C-alpha cells in the first residue's frame, strides 16, 4: 500500500513550530521538516528520539585508545625498543606519561572520524546520492513540512496543512 507524500511550504519558523504541534495532535504523520537553520525546540515537538551517536562516539573512542596503545607498544617496546631521553624501554607502563598525548590523539581521531562517517552514512548524505530536499527554497528562506497520508485522506490532510498556515501545498508525484 503506497502512501502519498505531501510537501507544505511555510514562511516562518514560529508558524512551522505551531503547525507541527497541531498536525501531530491531529494525527498527521510528519516525515521530515526541512529548514534553512535549526529551529529551537522542534525535536521535542516532532518527538525525535534521543540520538545514539554519543554511544557510537564512546565506542569509537575506546577503539582509538586500544589501537593507539597497540601501535605504540608494538613500535616502541616490542619490535624495536627505543631509548628516548634515557627512559626505561622494557615495559610500556614505565614510559606511560610519554604515551599519554598520543593515546589521547588516537582516541579523538577515531571518535571524531567515526562519528562524522556514521552520521553521513546514517543520514545517507554521500557523493552521488540525489538530494531528498523537495524544494531548494528551504535552503534560503522557506520551510517545508513533509507529511504522509493514505490516498483516501489526502484532501483532509491538505485542508489541515492550509489551515495551519502553509503558503503552498503540493502532492509529491
Amino acid at each position, binding site marked *: 500500500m503506497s502512501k502519498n507524500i505531501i510537501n507544505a511550504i511555510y514562511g516562518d519558523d514560529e508558524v512551522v513550530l505551531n503547525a507541527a504541534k497541531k498536525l501531530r495532535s491531529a494525527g498527521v504523520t510528519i516525515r521530515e521538516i526541512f529548514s534553512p537553520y535549526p529551529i*529551537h*525546540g522542534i525535536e521535542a515537538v516532532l518527538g525525535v528520539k534521543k540520538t545514539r551517536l*554519543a554511544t557510537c562516539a564512546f565506542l569509537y573512542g575506546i577503539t582509538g585508545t586500544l589501537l593507539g596503545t597497540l601501535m605504540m607498544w608494538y613500535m616502541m617496546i616490542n619490535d624495536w625498543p627505543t631509548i628516548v*631521553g*634515557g*627512559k626505561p624501554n622494557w615495559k610500556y607502563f614505565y614510559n606511560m*606519561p*610519554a604515551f*599519554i*598525548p598520543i593515546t589521547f590523539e588516537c582516541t579523538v581521531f577515531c571518535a571524531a572520524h567515526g562519528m562524522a562517517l556514521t552520521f553521513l552514512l546514517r543520514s545517507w548524505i554521500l557523493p552521488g546520492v540525489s538530494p531528498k530536499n523537495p524544494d531548494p527554497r528551504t535552503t534560503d528562506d522557506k520551510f517545508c513540512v513533509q507529511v504522509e497520508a493514505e490516498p483516501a485522506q489526502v484532501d483532509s490532510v491538505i485542508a489541515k496543512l492550509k489551515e495551519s498556515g502553509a503558503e503552498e501545498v503540493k502532492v509529491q508525484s
Partner: protein
Amino acid sequence: MDLKLNYTLPDKTKRLTVVTMAAGLVIFAIGIIFNMLGHSEGHAEGHGHAGELSTRLWANLLVNSFFFMGIGLGATFYMALKYGSEAHYATVFKRVVEAVTKFLPYGAVFMLVVLLAGQLHLHHLYHWMDSSVYDPTSPHYDVKIAEKYAYFNPAFFWARFFVFFGVWILCQRKLVKNSLNEDLSGGTQTHFKNVTLSAFFLVFFGFTSSVASWDWMMSLDVHWFSTMFGWYIFSGIWISAMITILLLVLYLRKNGYLEYVNESHIHDIGKWVFAISFLWTYLFFCQFMLIWYANIPEEVTYFQNRLETNGYKGLFWMVFFTNFALPMLLLMSRDAKRNSGLLVGVSVIIFVFHWLDIFLIVMPSTVASHWGIGGIEIGMFLVFLGFMVNRLLVFLTEAPLLPKNHPYLEESIHHHV
C-alpha cells in the same frame, strides 16, 4: 506566582555554620594536644624547622588562606568573564556569583596575615624571606636566591602584594556596586561600564594571577620554577569557585529560591565544572610530563619531593585521578549535568580534593616528611569552611536574588539548551 526575591538566612542554617566552626576548633585543639603528646616522647628528633609544630600550623594556615581566597578570586574572574563575553545565561544567578566574590577581601586579609608573619620571621615557610640568604658572608648564603634579590626584595614583593589585591578588590567592589546600581537606574549604560571594567580586569588578572601564584605558592620551592605553574593554580582556583557557585545555586533552588533558574542553567554550570576539571588535568599533566621527560635535576626536585620521598605518592596520584576521573566519568552525559544529586556529590568530593591539591603544593615544600592529615588539618579546614559558608550566606541576604534592568535578563530567564 509568588517569587521569593530576597534570601532570608534561617537561624538553623546560621547555627549550623557556627557549629561547623566550633567543631573545627575542637578537632583542631585535640589535634594539637595529640601532636604535643607525640612530640614530647620523640624529642631527640632535633629542631629542624620542618618538624616543628608551629611550621605545620603556619603551613596549614597558608593552605586554607590560599584555597579560600582563591574561591573569592575565582568567582571575581568568572563574574568579569561573563561581562567580557556578554554571556546571557548567567544573568539570573549573577547575585550568587556576586555573593561569592565578596569573600575576596577576607581572603586577602588571611593572606596578609600569613605573609606578614613570614616577613616578621614568625615562620620560615618562605626560605627567601630570611635576609641572611642574600648575605655573602653568612653561612646561609644562597647564590641562587641572591641572584633573584631584585625580584624577592621585600619592597617589591609587598608592592606586588598590595597592588594585586588592591586592584582585584577595587574591581570586584566596583563591578558589584554597578550591578546593584543597575537595579535602580535602568538603561544599558551601567552594563557597558561593567563590560569595560571587566575587560580591564581580565587582562590584569591574566597577568597578575600568574605572578601572584609564583609569589605565594611557587616560591615555597624557591629553587624550582615551572612555566605552567600560574595556569595550574589558576585552573585550581577557578574550579573551586565554580563548585562553590554551583552548590549555592542548588542549595537556594532546593529551598524555593531562584525559581527562574531552570535545568538549562544548571546544565551550563555543570558544563563549566566538567570543562575546568579537564583544564586543570591538562595543565597538571603538562607540567608533570614535561618535567618528567626532560629530567633536569633542578626541575625534578618538585616531583621528587612529592613522589619519591616524604610519603606523598599515594595522596598525589589520588588527588590527580579523583579530580580528573570523577568529573569525567560521572558528569560526561547530558542527563548527569541536570541531576542535582550527582552534581552535589561530585562537587563536594572534588572541592575537598582541590583543597588537597593546594595541600600538596604547600606541605612537601614546608613540613616535608613531618606531614599528616589529622585533627590540625581537618579542624582548621572546618573552621575556614564554616566561616566562608557563614559569610557567603550573609552576603546572599544583602541583595535581591533576581537582578532588574540587566539587558540580558529576559533572554536569560528563557534560556533553553
